[in-house]
């Protein structure tokens, strides 16, 4: 099973929920599965701040980008005309390819009659796998500074998961914030998407956008309200009206914020949060069974 934790709004508690849920599940020996936590917020991965594990491997990740071969080019302009992303400038006497705009679609490369646009690997980031214990593993992908596109690295992380896990695993995805391509790529293989929000007008606004995005992707969703107790009850009213299950309400506690700032997990120190995280898992199981 794969559970994605997304939000729309940033700073609602995706990482807090991801890390605590993964840690809690990995400790429950009676449930005979292993847990893989994947940080897919490749632009600023932070789950790793809360997890101290042994580094198993580190891999540099590349994507293929078209590269112009001046010697072969006959200046037919086909490449610039075909590029959907305006990544190619045709100047009559020269062709320029902008790697940051290239989406590695191969159109120019495949359709070039002279084979003058070979696809060349460009480094985009690094992927690391950590082992916390026999039952908890952590995969982190980190985009290099200056690389503009997050989606290709997220896609590679997603495919890596498929190689690593089978039915005896639970995978938890810490997704990037927002509602654009990176988050859509991150949740692609998820069986269920938990949307973490906060009970404020900002939280509700971005939750609405996230719900619309996930419905477009036809993903089962459930809402977790973090920092419960602040703001108002508009998020709950919205969920009720739109028949979105609210499977957890994590209380707003100063102690939780203090532990978070020290990079510690909450389930060991705050019993009421531990209970709530367990409830969230039960809520997921119930929803998954209803879907069957």
């Amino acid at each position, binding site marked *: 099973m794969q559970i994605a934790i997304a939000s729309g709004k940033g700073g609602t508690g995706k990482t807090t929920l991801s890390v605590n849920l993964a840690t809690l599940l990995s400790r429950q020996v009676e449930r005979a599965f292993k847990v893989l936590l994947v940080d897919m917020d490749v632009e600023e991965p932070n789950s790793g701040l809360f997890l101290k594990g042994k580094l198993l491997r580190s891999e540099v990740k590349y994507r293929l980008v078209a590269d112009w071969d001046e010697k072969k080019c006959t200046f037919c302009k086909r490449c*610039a005309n075909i590029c959907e992303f*305006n990544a*190619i*400038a*045709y*100047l009559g006497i020269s062709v*320029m390819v*902008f790697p940051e*705009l290239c989406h590695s679609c191969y159109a120019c490369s495949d359709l070039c009659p002279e084979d003058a646009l070979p696809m060349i690997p460009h480094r985009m980031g690094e992927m690391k796998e950590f082992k916390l214990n026999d039952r908890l593993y952590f995969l982190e992908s980190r985009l290099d500074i200056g690389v503009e596109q997050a989606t290709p690295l997220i896609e590679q992380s997603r495919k890596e998961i498929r190689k690593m896990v089978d039915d005896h695993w639970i995978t938890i995805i810490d997704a990037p914030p927002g509602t654009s391509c990176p988050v859509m790529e991150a949740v692609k293989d998820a069986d269920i998407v938990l949307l973490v929000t906060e009970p404020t007008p900002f939280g509700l606004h971005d939750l609405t956008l996230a719900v619309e995005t996930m419905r477009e992707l036809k993903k089962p969703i459930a809402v977790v309200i973090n920092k419960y107790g602040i703001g108002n009850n508009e998020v709950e009213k919205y969920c009720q009206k739109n028949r979105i299950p609210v499977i957890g309400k994590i209380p707003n506690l100063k102690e939780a914020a203090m532990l978070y700032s020290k990079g510690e997990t909450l389930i060991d120190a705050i019993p009421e949060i531990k209970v709530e995280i367990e409830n969230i898992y039960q809520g997921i199981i119930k929803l998954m069974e209803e879907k069957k």
Partner: protein
Amino acid sequence: MKVLIAAKSEGWDAMVSDRFGRAPGFSVYNTETNKLEWHSNTENLKAEHGVGIQAAQIAASHQAELVITGGNFGPKASEVLQKTGAKLVDYAGDITVKAAIEKFVK
């Protein structure tokens, strides 16, 4: 010589556009014939990315030796335009195409 001016609309009296890649269009002035040709930029206005590159490509297709905009050139547009060897004028001011030609060409 040809001069490409990012403009808000067609004609001599149109204002210079303060945006280059997303200018409504480009007036191409030919110093030999003293004529103005309009190149609409409607296609680029719809694009999400890479409009500066496309606009610079338009300048290249007209073999413009001088390119004028009311604002600044983005980094990618500048890169392409530098490759074409065109001379660039940015922050031309809140003036008409005609005034820009008088100020920077004549």
